[in-house]
């Protein structure tokens, strides 16, 4: 990309209290988000949580029943899809089987009355950008999944849309291709600089690609933030479990301190942790969210802190050691890098302590038992 092109004004999106209903069921509930210019913004959530519906409302294929959507500060409710210029890459690509790759990619430009040599050169450049030079005469049915994906991208990018909307673009690819396309998407976003809204149910994709992530559950926005925030500071148990593996240990608050709180496990272990942005009072029941890779297993006699338990399972994976530690009221998964504990490993039945650091543990409301 040349200097000029990156100076094109980047678009932004604002959704205000958007809701959508099918029949009596609200599949999107009161979603307010704002996507900043040039961002790679991801809607993350399990299948059926309303991600596609949100994307389709932005693209104009569904009407919100509540709330409004603004693109560059202009409401778009009354703009038909074909006047929105929001480039969408469909989940199953939606390449037109009766057109060649060239005609597929040229479609948007033809709609914009571009023809002749200009059309040819632009299509060529677009295909080059996704690494598909020379594929012009093929039919979509003659392409692999990854190639179809690229054609769909080229077809959308060629019209220089204000936004790039991607609906689970990698979900139809095999694992290897998926990680390759992930890198390419990141490169494309860097090169083109276009504001991107990405939809996925895969937390690894979301964490690795996004500048910010919105986690959705049952149509509602649960948490919005940078990938690190989402991962290390989940707001509730749903986010903690959905974004990466998490141990959720039931605890109760026994003491409030300036910098955080002290909690007690069912087995009586006391741990100082940060408050995680919630207002706690003594006696509250809570869940302590512990990421497996942020924990260490120590011999029981050696240390005093942590949570005491017994080794219930041990897997040696070469670079990592995986432990299941049974504690009163549950099991904790621990994941340790092998080099950090040269020569030291535990056997089944060993009495151990699980070391917890206050910075990497988050205290979450126990939605199951407290109102």
């Amino acid at each position, binding site marked *: 990309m040349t200097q000029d092109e990156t100076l094109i004004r980047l678009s932004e999106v604002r959704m205000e209290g958007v809701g959508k209903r099918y029949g009596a069921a609200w599949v999107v509930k009161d979603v307010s988000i704002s996507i900043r210019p040039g961002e790679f913004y991801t809607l993350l959530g399990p299948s059926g949580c309303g991600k596609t519906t949100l994307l389709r409302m932005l693209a104009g*294929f569904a009407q919100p029943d509540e709330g409004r959507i603004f693109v560059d500060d202009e409401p778009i409710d009354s703009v*038909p899809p*074909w006047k*929105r210029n929001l*480039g969408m890459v469909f989940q*199953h690509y*939606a390449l*037109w089987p009766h057109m060649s790759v060239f005609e597929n990619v040229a*479609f948007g430009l033809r709609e914009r009355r571009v023809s002749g040599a200009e059309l040819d050169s632009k299509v060529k450049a677009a295909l080059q950008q996704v690494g598909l030079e020379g594929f012009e005469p093929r039919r979509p049915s003659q392409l692999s999944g990854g190639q179809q994906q690229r054609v769909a991208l080229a077809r959308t990018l060629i019209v220089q849309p204000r936004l790039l909307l991607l609906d689970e673009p990698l979900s139809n690819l095999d694992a290897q291709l998926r990680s390759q396309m992930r890198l390419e998407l990141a490169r494309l976003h860097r090169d083109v600089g276009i504001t991107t809204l990405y939809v996925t149910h895969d937390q690894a994709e979301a964490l690795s690609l996004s500048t910010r992530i919105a986690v959705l559950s049952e149509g509602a926005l649960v948490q919005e933030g940078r990938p690190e925030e989402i991962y290390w500071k989940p707001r509730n148990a749903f986010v903690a479990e959905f974004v990466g593996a998490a141990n959720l240990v039931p605890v109760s608050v026994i003491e409030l301190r300036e910098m955080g709180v002290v909690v007690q496990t069912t087995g009586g272990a006391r741990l100082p942790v940060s408050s995680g942005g919630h207002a706690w009072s003594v006696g509250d029941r809570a869940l302590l969210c512990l990421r497996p890779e942020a924990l260490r297993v120590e011999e029981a006699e050696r240390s005093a802190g942590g949570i005491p338990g017994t080794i219930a399972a041990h897997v040696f994976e070469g670079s990592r050691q995986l432990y299941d530690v049974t504690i009163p009221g549950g099991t904790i998964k621990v994941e340790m890098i092998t080099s950090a504990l040269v020569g030291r490993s535990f056997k089944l039945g060993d009495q151990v302590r699980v070391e917890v650091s206050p910075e990497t543990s988050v205290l979450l409301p126990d939605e199951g038992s407290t109102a």
Partner: protein
Amino acid sequence: MIRRPSAESALVWSLLLLLGAGIVCPLLQVLSVAVMVDGRPTAAPLLAFFARPLFREAFVNTLASGVLAVALGSLIAVPLALSTVRYSFPGRGLLTTLGLLPLVIPPFVGAVAFQQILGRSGTVNLFLLERFGVTVPFMEGLWGVIMVQTLHYFPFIWLNTAAALSALDRSLEEAAENLGSSGFRLFRRVLLPLSLPGYAAGALLTFIRVIDDLGTPLMLNYTTLLAPQAYMRVTTVGLTDVDGYVICAVLVALSLSALWISKGLLGRGEFTAVGRSGETPARVLGAGGALAVWAIAILLLGPALLPHVGIVLLSVSKVWSLSPLPSVYTLGNYDEILFRVPHFIWNTLRYAFLAAALDVGLGAVIARLLLRGRTRGRQWLDAIATMPLAVPGVVLAVGYLRVFHGWSVPGLGAPLTSTWLILVIVYAVRRLPYTVRGAYAALQLQPVSLEEAAQNLGAGRARAFLKVTLPLMGRGLLAGGLLAFVSSAVDLSSTILLVPHVELGPLSYGIYLYMQSAVGRGPGAALGVVAIALVAAGTWRATRLAHGGAGLFRA
């Protein structure tokens, strides 16, 4: 997005208006005359109808012809369907193709040919008389009509049953075998119930076509049936005669009851859609088995192919009377119909093409509205557009005469019923279900996102439809259009009532006229051969377009 409902509902309502005028209004007109007197409902005309012995007999005959044609047709079709689907033997493909041949000969053309071969002084009887001194009255009276209709329409049952059988999931049958079922029990408990919907579809279509068939009885000069009675009332007594309308109402009632009964069978569900694991493999037959199948096939199918031979012979004969085979051959008949009076063929091509083109356009738009639209009232569109399947052609024609004979076309200055437009309209209306169904099936397979992707890239709704959706519906739509074309080209039921005058008559009308006189039989047969060629070519292309599409031949 905001504007969508209003633009769409305008379209839906104008289509409803159009189809209402073309289908509902004429139908209601006919029915209202039959059940209303002075604006009050009454059963008097109906009672009068059943009080007359002639009409009672015609009613019983019509019902009998429909039921017997289905029953006899099933005797031919079901064994053929079972053997072509379940067994593999040399010439299986050929046999399946031969099965389409009876359909390509319009029934009234077939009637003439049968007359020539099996009639009182036809080939077979002359031969029998010469050798044994006896004749067999194959073609006399009602039985002649039923035989011709059976031999023409049984492929509907064959094709639909075969389609249902071959769509059966292999695992269903294997599961039954695995549980110890085999042979006839397997057939009765698994295959029969599962192929019933397909069979019912074919039987229904046969029944409706048979009771609506006007050409065959007229050609065979047996008129104690409802359709010819209606025709004769309207043409001899006139449009004011109530009996004509009552007959039409009774025909509609028969059609609807058949539809209702077969829906009962179909209503148990089209079972074939549940997760398939492959077609049932055909059992390979040994030489003896293959020979047996072919022997049965020739026995069952042979008579149905007689008229093809008969009509071709008749078309090149100058003199063929009181002799087993023509005594003098000529090409003069073709000279007559191709060069001296070419307007029959020309009119047919023109009307059928226009009707099919209308149907393709309407079918595509209606299918899209049904599957992707949002306006309320769409269901009505569906119901009305498929109505012509159950409305006999005679009835619709009578309705048109009543509704439109006083109505002048703006700019033409003549009543609609005295222009050829009326023929195009009635053809288009009667065959609309073909294209709606073809387009609907094709569109159902098409993800919505294909159209949305076009809109997303800047194409408005109409352009996205034209550039993406329509071309992708192409095959199904075209197949439906071709069938609309060929069946319009050989329609006689509505044509015969609606042709304003001879010069505007299409091919089917020409055949009917020619066949009225002995000298006209040669040219009439030549027109018949043209009709067969048209239908054969169209049907062949249509089945290829729709991938073997037995689904094309459904009601």
